[in-house]
């Protein structure tokens, strides 16, 4: 999957399902602040990732991500792992 496509998919569900303001989603934006995340939201992010990309992640994985770019990279790495497997 191309990086542009990953960005479009992630930004799409953040805007649609999480009602995040589209303008606030930039690669350098702080993930937690941008998404206004609490512990319950991490569970829903796991659900959105599974339904959009077809793989499961752990909620604790989000703890190490700081920016939106970290989030995109994480998804990108997971997709690569999946294709390599």
């Amino acid at each position, binding site marked *: 999957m191309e990086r542009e496509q990953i960005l479009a998919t992630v930004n799409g569900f953040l805007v649609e399902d999480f009602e995040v303001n589209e303008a606030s989603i930039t690669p350098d934006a702080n993930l937690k602040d941008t998404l206004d995340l609490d512990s319950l939201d991490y*569970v829903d992010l796991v659900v959105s990732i*599974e339904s959009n990309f077809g793989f*499961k992640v752990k909620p604790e994985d989000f703890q190490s991500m700081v920016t939106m770019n970290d989030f995109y990279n994480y998804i990108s790495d997971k997709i690569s792992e999946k294709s390599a497997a």
Partner: protein
Amino acid sequence: MNHRVVITGLGIYSCIGYNLDAVRQSLFEGKSGIILDPARKEFGYRSGLTGYVERPNLKDYLDRRARIMMPEHAEYAYMSTKEAIHEAGLTEDYFEDHEVGIIFGNDSCAKAVIDGIDKVREKKDTILVGSASVFQVLNSTINMNLSTIFKLRGINLTMSAACASGSHSIGIGYMFIKNGMQDMIICGGGQETNIYSMPNFDALSAFSIRENDPTRASRPFDRDRDGLVPSGGAATVILESLESAQRRGAPILAEVIGYGFSSNGAHISNPTVDGPARSLQMALRDAGLHAKDIGYLNAHATSTPAGDATEASAIYEVFKDAMPFVSSTKGMTGHECWMAGASEVVYSTLMMKNGFMAPNLNFENPDEESAKLKIVTETLENKFDVYLSNSFGFGGTNSSLIIKDWK
């Protein structure tokens, strides 16, 4: 010291209207909210009849987190409670400074449970059910959602008593205020109307199969009744101590003066005469009234052969020649189950404040038991000052409330 308990706010979201004005109009016109839902037939229901209630769009009122936590009946309850709070002249900052409670009637969350479990079955991983499911599946879902949305800080309790849940919520709220433990409680009842909410009830052949004539299917006390029509929505009744209402200059609508209850101590679904009769007598004793003092009786009568007959006998046993006017609004609304006791207090209070008695829709011929009642067959522009509202549920739980006009 006992405190007097008054009603200062009402709200309603039902199949005969989505606010107080619309519902008052429907009650006066004897308008039915019953439809035939083809999806129920396709799903396997014996009867596809149901009250039709549209889900409200809450996007304008609540953020995503608040919205996803709510199953359908919590959404209905949000709408009715929002209206009641407004009618009571309350603003949300009042709840920051005062310990206001909430006691809501609810006895199922079928769709939320089924949707959640289906997801786990499919995905074999519980996390994929999402964060909101657990808050939707608990019977206390209406309480937990409304108490967090409105930031309520008093008693927070769900009343589950089958089809008497809404009525007991008002009865228990009345007791908390009467004995001085709370000044104000938001009471009510909510009922889901989705396709998953009623198949088990339908399994008992309890529903009317008069599908060719939906608006004439629910016919409480009528000789040719063949079962109830399930329905739903939500109703809210704000109870307050008289002192609290007067202190804040609230609009006082009526006073709750009596609560009676009983358990049949018999069969799980077959009704009795003795159980409801004891509930009626207890409510009259609590109110310090005699049978002749009741101007109007809003019956539980759901349009089932056995239930209506035993209630008619219980009413006759208690009232005999001091018979009040009687109607069951379920002829219009169908049986609103967990919500019914609360919605029927809303309906009856609207009638009392507007000087009319709504008809017992579709009552055409009495049977042996209902012939002894004074049933309102057409809208009666008749003032009354005191009414009694009955609600009974599976397991033999009975509740009777007596409410007096406030002038």
